[in-house]
């Protein structure tokens, strides 16, 4: 499997660490809703087909990538920097605990 790192180019699977399902959203940290937290931590869609997931280029630039990959064929459909896909709320930057 080859993953094309936006910084480093196409690199072998061996350079990457799988960092799991990227379809989950971390609940508001101030929230104590157990269902939301449990779902975030434990429950997975485990899709058979196109799956959005995180890979870290741990043997390279160490950036996390959001990869769309088919779990039936291993074909990689899309690679983006994880940061670009993560939700940004810059206004809340300095306020403790206000981030999702």
């Amino acid at each position: 499997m080859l993953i094309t790192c936006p910084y480093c180019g196409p690199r072998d699977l061996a350079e990457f660490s799988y960092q799991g399902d990227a379809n989950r959203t971390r609940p508001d940290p101030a929230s104590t809703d157990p269902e939301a937290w449990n779902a975030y931590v434990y429950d997975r869609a485990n899709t058979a087909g196109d799956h959005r997931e995180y890979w870290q280029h741990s043997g390279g630039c160490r950036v996390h990538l959001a990869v769309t990959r088919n779990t039936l064929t291993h074909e990689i459909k899309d690679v983006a920097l994880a940061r670009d896909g993560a939700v940004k709320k810059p206004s809340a930057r300095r306020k403790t605990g206000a981030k999702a």
Partner: protein
Amino acid sequence: MAEYSFLSLLKNAWNGNRDWKPAWRKPDPRPAYDVVIIGGGGHGLSTAYYLAKEHGIANVAVLEKGYLGSGNIGRNTTMIRSNYLLPANQRFYEHSMKLWESLSHDLNYNVMFSQRGCLNLAHSPAQLDDFARRGNAMRHAGIDAELMSREQIRRFVPALDIDFGGRFPVVGGLIQRRAGTARHDAVAWGYARAADRRGVDIIENCEVTGFLRDADRIVGVATTRGEIRAGKVAVAVAGSTGRVMKLAGVDRLPIESHVLQAFVSEGIKPFMDTVVTFGAGHLYVTQSDKGGMVFGGDIDGYNTYAQRGNLPIVEDVMSEMCAMFPGLTRVRLLRSWGGIMDMSMDGSPIITTGPLPGMYLNCGWCYGGFKATPASGWCFAWTIARDEPHPINAPFALDRFHRGILIDEKGQGATPKLH
């Protein structure tokens, strides 16, 4: 159908082996059963067998989408052990071990359970203490375990490089002597034949395409061979759990599907007489009766439903093999294959009623499914028959994740690739 024995073998050999009958029938599905079990692998078949044997429920169909035993029952490295640390696992796997010990007689089928021992190598005093903790936990639960010294290990496994080239000298090990290996396919076939003899219908090439519902309740399945109604529907499809449960509208489970590669070398004369695991990496090795070295390591470590892996793991595993057994560098890898594991969030399985009314779920076996085959079926049959778990499988509930009552043998948390 005739009993298998040396006598029947002789008699049939005399007749040119013309009188053997099919090991199990190939019935067409009937319109309805008391219980329909989805999944004709080891766990589904053993569940059917124990439903008939222990609970008198023989109006049972086992549905298999491909050929019987096409999943992980025929793809594992055949190791059987109950050398667990945590009490829930100890009770469950030791129950399984006891069933294994009489399984060939029970099924009238030689599953070739060879109690040749399973030796975990320790490479530092701290690791040996950790093994002692586990071994002592086993002994306090009535399970056999012994520590072996470096010298004992040297004599027990002469082919082993006791120093791993000087890099990871073995300081000792933990052995469970009752552990060992069995012939994986024989387990599937033995359960299939024994269940069939008790009246269970085993239906191959019958893929489930949907679930039949009556309001909230699951009342049967739609299949490529027609609709089949059932009082109870049991799902035992580890490796395909996500896909099958989605058909029932269960979109999320505490499971990820990963591929585990397994390897076998060309056959060689007896090279070692036990199962050995490497403690400073991840490698487990045995030798089949045919002579092939059978071994595996880590899962590839990414979500997949494709039954094939990639090269990095192949290279890791071979490196560790050569470090463990320097005499094997010129022995050749014959075959590699992949099986899809239900990797759960704490590394332990799920055997439960639900999650929908009329449904029962058995999944999440991670690496451990083969050795669990008898107890998994035994407990699942109980759970299906009585609509409640047996105390042995009660801890393996689906809600344990949310409640924080985890059975995390490796202490890795909700990172499935690390279990």
